[in-house]
């Protein structure tokens, strides 16, 4: 298989065919927890993508040195230490960003996508394809997070892009679009049950697209 087709397949896999959230159904815990708004979804997505690329590359580099029987505990240790180190470094050197994304970082450890990709892809492939795989899976995950976030935000509180200034700075305050004003928020969409149903609908839509 030549290189270009290999990479385009990896990318297509991550974004659509084998999408983390819609097909593999991995990483549901953080997905359901934070997709109350589009911006929260984007925040978690970015942090996850970053960790996914890093852990994929690391696992891929040491894949030939670890015995098969104990690979899983080793991956777990690597990922945990990777995430903790990122958290510390962000806290020290990019404090403002840490204040925004920091809250998502402990959630990443609970995301089985990371170990899923380490096991399914990075432990069998060289570093570069593994990095591409991490990136593609991460972006695929992020897109679903954003879509679900937008959906719940729209139904729940009648806005899109609420809180954009938390991620992009004060200029983004005007990005928020108000569709309708609610006296009372539609709690059902904002709380986890709304996330379950929203995700179910997205999966159903994807499945029907694949069949036709």
């Amino acid at each position: 298989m030549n290189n270009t087709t290999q990479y385009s397949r990896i990318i297509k896999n991550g974004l659509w065919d084998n999408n983390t959230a819609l097909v593999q159904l991995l990483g549901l815990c953080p997905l359901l927890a934070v997709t109350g708004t589009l911006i929260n979804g984007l925040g978690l997505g970015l942090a996850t993508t970053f960790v996914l690329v890093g852990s994929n590359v690391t696992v891929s580099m040491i894949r030939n040195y670890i015995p098969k029987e104990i690979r899983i505990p080793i991956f777990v240790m690597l990922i945990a230490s990777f995430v903790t180190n990122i958290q510390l470094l962000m806290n020290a050197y990019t404090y403002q960003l840490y204040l925004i994304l920091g809250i998502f970082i402990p959630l990443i450890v609970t995301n089985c996508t990371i170990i899923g990709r380490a096991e399914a892809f990075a432990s069998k492939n060289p570093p570069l394809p593994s990095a591409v795989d991490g990136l593609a899976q991460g972006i695929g995950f992020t897109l679903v997070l954003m879509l679900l976030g937008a959906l719940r935000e729209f139904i729940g509180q009648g806005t899109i892009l609420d809180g954009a200034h938390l991620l992009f700075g004060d200029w983004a305050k005007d990005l928020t679009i108000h569709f309708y004003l609610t006296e009372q928020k539609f709690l059902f969409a904002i709380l986890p049950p709304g996330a379950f149903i929203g995700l179910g609908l997205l999966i159903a839509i994807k499945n029907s697209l694949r069949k036709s």
Partner: protein
Amino acid sequence: MSSTADNPANKKQLLWGKINRNGLILALFAFLSTGLIAITHQLTKQKIALAVEHNMISQLSQIVPQGLYDNEVYQDCIKIRSLSLLGSNRFQKAYRLRKHRKDVALLLTAVAPDGYSGPIEFSMAISKTGQIMGLNIISHRETPGLGDKIERRKGNWLDQFNGLAIKNKKQNWGVKKDGGQFDALTGATITPRAMVKAAYNALLFYQQHQQQLFTQASNCYQKDE
């Protein structure tokens, strides 16, 4: 050859060899990854403390008008500690705000130990007369979208504390659900409950040590004994 491999004793030996080797490799990775975290922690510890302090003081203007004090807040600082009232075994800091050498207010850090997912660190400005001037969250791990609404940049929940003093009836210091005067947050009751309790305790600490808090010599940047 096959007869030696089939020999149960040999098989056992082979197995033990493998277990030993894998155990060693596992231990090595555990050592490496823990070591890496320990090193990063050591290297970033001071930098983080500095960033946190810097950020807290730069946010001071959100709760105390800058014209009210004219001293170097960073320098005018003492270490305080109280497990029962400040929520942590670790040293907290109290910064004195003064104008023309007269005491105006105190900015202290404290911890709400019983947040929904761990302790919530916050800073609180108290006027000389014992009224809350304002609160800011320093760090927390509350659920995004629910408990994190206590943050100032995500809402004005914290403003409910402004102007309160210890002499306000004790029963008012609670969320409405518990018969107090504080609004809870949609989908999060534990977080506001923890914050109200911690703010009350911090105010109590101020009440009990008021004199000493303003007169004690600055000691924040001396080494811990």
